[in-house]
């Protein structure tokens, strides 16, 4: 029973930050129809910026809570700016090309960002552990947990709810949904699709970076961070269905639980159990768990 609880809690903790990252990926795909390989780089970027912010805050001997807030604020601002710049400055030039070509464009961005982060932050591991102590330790059913980890769960649930609410219950959200469903029709109804694209991409980058910032206190930042995360979030959105918010949530929980379960029960399977699930889902429901089949041209 204890083991079961451990797996569920560990899984949910994993799922919480994975969900935030995957949510960005699935939104970008939904609106721009781009499977963004550089998404993992934005995650890494967020983690690195967070580390710098935390270190800076500590240098001015601000309390850890202020460091935490500074970290989230700076990451959000920089990520949104980077997102808009990239979309307007680069991606815009490639719209209308083949899906695979767009994928490679983001791959090129991934390669470039990989070196940019190395140039700025170097190749040695960086830590930003101060906020990790922020919420103390908690005892839960005989198990000890770091408060920060548990706080991640409601934070990501709140982010998920806000995104869902924003998409389904506000005018702006409805416009975004309209662009997702039929871009041409939205243009003819007077929607400025360009702006929706830029905003959606920037928001996707912001979510990825936020995911990175939230995990930054838990991990050591070093090169290679991005390529692992992108594969995990790919698996999540493919399992859930590309472009689906609910799908990203379910996919994240599935992947989180699978990872936690394999760590505790079968450590040698940790790396491939996720891809196994992804392959299995694709075999039986290629559109993912949460995507309706769409009509196609014969």
């Amino acid at each position: 029973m204890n083991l079961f609880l451990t797996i569920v809690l560990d899984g949910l903790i994993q799922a919480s930050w994975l969900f935030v990252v995957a949510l960005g990926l699935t939104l970008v795909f939904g609106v721009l129809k781009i499977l963004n390989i550089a998404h993992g780089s934005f995650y890494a970027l967020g983690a690195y910026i967070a580390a710098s912010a935390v270190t800076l805050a500590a240098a001015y001997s601000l309390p850890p809570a202020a460091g935490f807030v500074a970290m989230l604020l700076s990451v959000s601002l920089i990520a949104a700016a980077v997102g808009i710049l990239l979309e307007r400055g680069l991606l815009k030039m490639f719209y209308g090309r083949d899906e695979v070509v767009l994928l490679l464009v983001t791959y090129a961005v991934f390669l470039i960002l990989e070196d940019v982060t190395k140039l700025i932050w170097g190749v040695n591991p960086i830590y930003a552990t101060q906020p990790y102590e922020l919420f103390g330790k908690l005892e839960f059913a005989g198990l000890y947990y770091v408060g920060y980890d548990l706080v991640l769960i409601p934070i990501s649930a709140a982010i998920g709810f806000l995104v869902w609410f924003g998409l389904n219950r506000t005018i702006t959200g409805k416009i975004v949904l309209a662009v997702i469903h039929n871009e041409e029709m939205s243009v003819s109804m007077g929607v400025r699709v360009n702006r929706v694209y830029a905003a959606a991409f920037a928001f996707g980058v912001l979510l990825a970076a936020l995911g990175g910032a939230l995990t930054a206190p838990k991990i050591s930042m070093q090169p290679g961070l991005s390529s692992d995360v992108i594969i995990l979030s790919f698996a999540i959105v493919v399992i859930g269905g590309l472009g689906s918010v609910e799908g990203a949530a379910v996919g994240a929980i599935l992947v989180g639980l699978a990872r936690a379960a394999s760590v505790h029960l079968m450590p040698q399977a940790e790396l491939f159990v996720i891809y196994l699930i992804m392959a299995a889902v694709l075999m039986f429901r290629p559109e993912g768990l949460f995507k309706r089949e769409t009509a196609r041209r014969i």
Partner: protein
Amino acid sequence: MKPGLHPLVMLALVAAVTLFGRVLPTWTLSLATIAASNALIALGIVVLARTGNVSFGQGLFFAGGGYGVALVANAWGITDAVAQVIIGAVCGGLLGLVIGPLIARYSGIFFGMLTLALSMVLYGALVKSSALGGSDGFNVGRPSLFGMIFNDTREADFMLYAVSVITTGLAGIAATILFRSELGLVSLAVRENNLRTEYLGLSATRIITINFVIAAIFAGASGAFALMAQRHVDPQFAYWTTSGEFVFVAVLAGYQSVAAVFVASLALELVRSFSNLYLPNTWQLVLGAFLLGVILFLPRGIGSLWVRDRHKRIKPAAALPVAAQKEAAQ
């Protein structure tokens, strides 16, 4: 795809390139070996891409070939280069035969994702398998050729260069013949519209499977070359960035000409080794910028540099199938 060039002319070209290796400096020789090996696997991606599917998991067969050859070499002491290439190709082909029929039902982004997932399954399994050296992989001995053992590094490099250029050249010729064949033309039809192909009485899944297996064979042989060149194999062979690089070469080349694949592969290796030399900390940055530049300014790949003129000349004769013309129009 280049109409008119006779296979015998191409054979002569391959022979000339091979002999040219005698006068190349040593560092170019190993660079050209890697370029030829990468061209082989990218050629497989081009073959498959003609059905409209891009595989992001060729690393699976690349690793399959590499590990297969390495295991056979260590178990039975087979060090012959040609035998190793054949073993690699067989390993890749067998894997392709198992996976191809499963995967042929998918298209577009799902095809890419599924191939990527499968190669990452293999990566995960290899990293955790201590019998195969885990994430460090293991070493194999120096390859020989027809009983000859090469102790001189330059001779060994040339041997490897010759074998890889000849294999890749032969594969290129085979691909050219394939592209002009019935199967090759039907593949283009599948890419245009797989349902209509089915209505014509052809099995789209079968056509995709055959092309997939061909791509897997090329990838397996390429894995054998990578193994012989490095004399080392590790799970990185199956990692998604490795596969991504091969797609990179294929897109760089464009889908119009076999020769373009070789040029693109060589260009990539040159850019990589020069930026490695002069900008050691930013070679990925240079590579990414290079890729963006090619996609932006040569949307149809490096091949369009010389194939474009050719198209103009033969268009009046209507010698091209509709699909190829459409492709050219893109």
